[in-house]
């Protein structure tokens, strides 16, 4: 329907292409402006024109008095995101395996996960804070903060696992079993390698969603802030390009995580493309 009789693009294609390009500009334009502005000279302000070019505002991030506890919150966010990533990966995979069978309560748990996804983050935080107050527990980032983040990352992990298992061909697994593989061997030698790209996607969601989480964190991380809370606090009182420098740094981390994940997935997929050839190679030793 999109191709005319002679294979020419219809007018609608060009209109929609223009809409798409504008949308991408809308999506990335403002972001790129703050990256550029973060490289301003020491006298720079919050908007264009640029006043000089320097790394001054990145240096200012490490000056304690200016931006609060930047290094500490940065380290906490990274560590928390890594823990959340690992737990999201393991818990989602296990749950994904469970949902391949019938078990009692499956529907209930599925709906709880969906509710967790749709639940306003502020309420998750409020609820956890109330439980803490009643039980006399002090909220801490590695305890309540971790739990709050998992309520956000696990539903994504579970949905990705559903999508991945939907396309999973169980005959590979059955073939392995017929050849005498144990449960553990089936998991590590058949299921995990086949699911690898999906698992990397789960890890990416786990890391980045935790690393950037705000609403669920406000009441659950306790006295020591994570990075996004530090940024949120800065938006209210810092009116210098240091804010943008922080934005550039934190976005660079996110982009790094995305790039690593996507490149790894691409590599696995590409290697798969040549997989059967290699398997047929008589000299092919398992590598």
């Amino acid at each position, binding site marked *: *329907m*999109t191709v005319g009789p002679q294979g020419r693009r*219809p007018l609608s294609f060009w209109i*929609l292409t223009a*809409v*798409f390009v504008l*949308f991408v500009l*809308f*999506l*990335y334009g*403002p*972001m790129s*402006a*703050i990256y550029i*502005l973060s490289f301003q000279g020491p006298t720079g302000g*919050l*908007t*264009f024109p640029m006043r000089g070019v320097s790394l001054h505002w990145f240096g200012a991030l490490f000056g304690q008095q200016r931006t609060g506890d930047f290094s500490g919150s940065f380290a906490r966010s990274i560590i928390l995101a890594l823990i959340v990533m690992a737990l999201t990966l393991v*818990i989602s995979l*296990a*749950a994904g*395996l*469970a949902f*391949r*069978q019938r078990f009692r309560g499956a529907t209930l*748990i599925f709906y709880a*996960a969906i*509710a*967790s996804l*749709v*639940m*306003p983050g*502020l*309420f*998750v935080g*409020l*609820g956890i*804070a*109330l*439980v803490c107050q009643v039980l006399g527990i002090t909220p801490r980032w590695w305890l309540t903060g971790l*739990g709050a983040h998992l*309520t956000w990352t696990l539903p994504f992990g*579970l949905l990705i696992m*559903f999508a991945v298992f939907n396309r999973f061909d169980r005959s590979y697994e059955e073939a392995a079993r017929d050849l005498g593989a144990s449960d553990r061997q089936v998991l590590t030698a058949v299921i995990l390698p086949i699911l690898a790209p999906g698992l990397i996607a789960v890890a990416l*969601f786990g890391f*980045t969603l935790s*690393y*950037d989480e*705000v*609403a669920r964190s406000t009441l659950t991380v306790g006295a020591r802030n994570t990075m996004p809370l530090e*940024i*949120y606090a800065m*938006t209210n009182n810092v009116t210098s390009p240091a*804010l943008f420098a922080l*934005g550039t740094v*934190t*976005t660079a981390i*996110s*982009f790094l995580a*995305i790039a690593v994940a996507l490149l790894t997935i691409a590599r696995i997929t590409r290697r798969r493309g040549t997989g059967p050839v290699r398997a047929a190679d008589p000299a092919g030793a398992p590598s």
Partner: protein
Amino acid sequence: MRRLVPYLQVAPLATVLLLFLVIPVGMILVVSFWSYDQFDIYPDFILDNYRYIFTSPVTFSIYLKTIYYAVVTWAITLVLGFTISYYLVFHVRNLLWQIGLFLLCTVPFWTSNIIRMISWIPFLGREGIFNQALLATGLASAPLEFLLFSDFAVILAYVHLFTLFMIVPIFNAMARISPTVIEAAVDGGAKPWQVVLHVVLPLSKTGVALGSIFVVALVMGDFFVVRTMSGGQSGSVASALNNEIGLLQYPTAAAGAVVLLVIVTLMVAAILRIVDVRRELAA
């Protein structure tokens, strides 16, 4: 023994959801009936917190405002999300390009919402890029004041942040439409707009429904976009609750949260009544 395996496998997920979602939300419900003073909250069974909400003159206007934000954002993200997905699925013919452009639309999801939100500030301010451009080209004689710290800025930020929650589910639904269905419609003499309206739209309604649930829930539960982008001049239900939490009026905030949750649940239920999402998700 083997029958126990799925229970063991799902136990960690169930435990996390129980400890950090079900019990906390249950606690919100319980505490909404408690009393409090400036020092602490006390177990009780009073309806004062709810009475306060339903008699406060602010409640109605703040809900009206929040629903206004939700509806306008929903309408814009729906049209945008549908158009972008339609373009990617039906106009981009090369699969590699399709995946690449789809990723281009989704990458911001994995970056900080706060940073994406504040990145509008250099654009919209009195001396921002838009106003400078307007003045330079003579399109305006004085800087436009309504750009930043206004309803306009709030909705712009919502659209900027949440459109991809529409794109992803609609894209998925559209990608599953068989080309033969569309060929049949074209062969039957349907004009392009008729194909979109009578074939593509009905077949992608699951995606539309899922995206709508996301966007409505996100806007209704937001407190930080509305606070920052309205410059504190406007409020939503959640930002009012956030203020009450800041004042440690937990029982009032809890009651407000219960009311908001009931309303969001009703909205989601209404969407699910129109479209049976579960059937499609299971497929």
